């Protein structure tokens, strides 16, 4: 059951979405579940209690401590994740959504450990693998004890940011 349960860290950028067809294909090799994980990196979230903000109600409750604009943006993210989850469900793969604040590499590795993940699928931009930017990806690889499928997008990091 090498590919049964896949963790798919996703930031909804083009590079991360390009990993999706690989997970669809892995259904034929036994993938039954995909866990979509959106990590709120510190610059985005400030001070939020640790937890999994995986429902509109939980996100709405953040309005008590965060700006309305940010929380509404997070809700839009959640809805987009639901759309991606639906695509997997339509392919016959059970999908779960998690939105967790923290450092990317730590959240990914601890989620993978706690949920008995078999494979982590990462869609990364070519720019993030350049000599000066590869640090974050190396951190994820180092922190993970699980196998990783790294799908490298042809999307250029700088042009992605210019959108």
């Amino acid at each position, binding site marked *: 059951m*090498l*590919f049964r349960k896949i963790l798919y860290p996703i930031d909804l950028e083009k590079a991360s979405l390009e990993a999706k*067809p*690989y997970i669809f*294909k*892995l259904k*034929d*090799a*036994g993938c039954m579940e995909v866990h979509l994980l959106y990590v709120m990196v510190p610059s985005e979230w400030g001070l939020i209690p640790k937890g999994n903000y995986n429902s509109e109600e939980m996100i709405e409750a953040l309005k008590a401590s965060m700006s309305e604009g940010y929380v509404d943006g997070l809700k839009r993210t959640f809805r987009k994740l639901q759309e991606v989850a639906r695509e997997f469900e339509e392919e016959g793969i059970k999908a779960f959504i998690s939105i967790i604040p923290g450092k990317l590499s730590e959240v990914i590795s601890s989620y993978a450990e706690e949920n008995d993940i078999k494979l982590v699928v990462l869609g990364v931009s070519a720019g993030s*693998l*350049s*000599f000066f930017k*590869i640090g974050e*990806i*190396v951190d994820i*690889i*180092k922190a*993970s*004890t*699980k*196998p*990783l*499928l*790294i*799908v*490298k997008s042809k999307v250029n990091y700088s042009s992605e940011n210019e959108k």
Partner: protein
Amino acid sequence: MPLFEKVLYSTDFSPLAEYALDYVKKLKEAGAKEVIVVHVVDDLSIELPDGADLLREKELFKILPEVDQEYVTSIVERLEAIKQELEKEELSVKLYLKYGNISRQIVKVADKESVKLIVMGAHGKGLLTEIILGSVSTDVIRNANCPVLIVKKMEE
């Protein structure tokens, strides 16, 4: 969609690389048909040109000192054993035994063979070594033109 049709499997014959082979076999169910098995040697007692093909360039083998010839012969036997194992799974197999920089040669063969995926084991190395020198796996990820499946450790 032929996302996993042609797979490059890089091996250093370690138990982790052997475990990574299970992933290659499993990928047959996701469409893998052909496996390019690659081993790169960088520790012969004489210097050869980077990228020398020790399987196909027979005259190279002849110039090697006896100790290296024995070493290369033992590697060829191990590669042949992997070939047989994969052929049992009804996968077609092509072998490469290259000399030179490990990550560079893996990426070169991957490009030459237009593989769809590289599968390899990744051994944890010291943080400092990795920051300064980079590891084989991170160098492959950085330079490959296709997805890379990194197998970190064996399942308990």
